[in-house]
């Protein structure tokens, strides 16, 4: 089970990233848990300075940008 976290306070970019992640997971048919982290304290705690950020299994893979569906797929299959 892959754990995917999308960190962001709810701005447009964060929503786009979340949608991309859901699409990638659906396309791959991956058993994954996608979590939205919108709480500011939790975002700060994780060390992220630019939102949105993407974590896969607790590891940061993108910060301050919105990777497209294909990039997320390749990140997930790595």
């Amino acid at each position, binding site marked *: 089970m892959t754990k995917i976290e999308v960190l*962001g*306070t*709810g*701005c447009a*970019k*964060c929503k786009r990233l979340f949608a991309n992640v859901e699409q990638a997971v659906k396309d791959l048919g991956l058993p994954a848990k996608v979590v939205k982290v919108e709480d*500011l*304290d939790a*975002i*700060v*705690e*994780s*060390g*992220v*300075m*630019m*939102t949105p950020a993407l974590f896969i299994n607790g590891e*940061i893979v993108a*910060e*301050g*940008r*919105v990777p497209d569906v294909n990039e997320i797929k390749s990140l997930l299959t790595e």
Partner: protein
Amino acid sequence: MQDYLQLFADWVTYTIFGLVQGNPLASSVNFFVYDTIKVTLLLAVIVFAVGIVRTFITPQKVKKWVAGRTEGAGNVLAALLGIPTPFCSCSAVPLFIGFVESGVPLGITFSFLIASPLINEVAAAMLLAMFGWQIALIYIVSGLVIAIVAGIIIGRLHMEGQVEDFVWKCRMHDQPDKTMTWKERVDFGISESKAITLKVLPYIIIGIAIGAVIHGYAPSDFLVTIAGPDNPLAVPVAVLLGIPLYSNAAGMIPIMEVLTAKGMAIGTALAFMMAVIGLSLPEMVILRKVIKIKLLAIFAVILFVSFTLTGYLFNAILG
């Protein structure tokens, strides 16, 4: 390069659309075709170059580089590093906390927070395409000076008590920085260039279309009395109008180009643009989460005064 573009614009206007040279519609169409292509090409190239630079400068690194610097040198460095760093108002809070929490002085943090949105590659590329390199340079240099001076003033005011208490208690994990290969950097530059150019293109097209209509139809001196160099009120009014307008620099600059051609003073136009991109209501609402109302007000007033002075200065020099 520009000659070929002009030939192409002429061909589209007079041959494809069959318009007659000299009529206002022909003038508008020609202007629209020429400007859209020129701005888009230049924007794509500059955003690509800045994207490459951006792979070397992450906020995590900036934080380490400026922590422990003294006033002056620290403010200059923070403002310079703010140029290639992209800014989204929703990142203002984690950025602010990350800086303050790792011991970056408040004034230096503000130099970065001001420079990052105020000086951005989209505005610089568009000024370069539509106003020439001198105005683009004036914009970057005055943006830097504002960020440095405003940061030093805020630092000197010793406003640490105006930062919300929880900020001081935050403990951020340090994220390890991955080293990228050159191929990854170039790929990043290309994807940034594609994403940003496509994102701002609709604004540019709308801006140029509005500009083209004004260009073709409005009398050539209709703004001289309201926004010309002889109306001292024009600058502060332009700055006040610019603050609530948010993130539409890409659409504003083509309109500015036409308005200056119709008599608006260049300093006034610059001050207006800086207010549009450098200070916005949503950003202030978000910053309110980490700083108290007094510091927020001081921040807004310092920027208002800086933009207005910049407008007067360049009206005096270039007007």
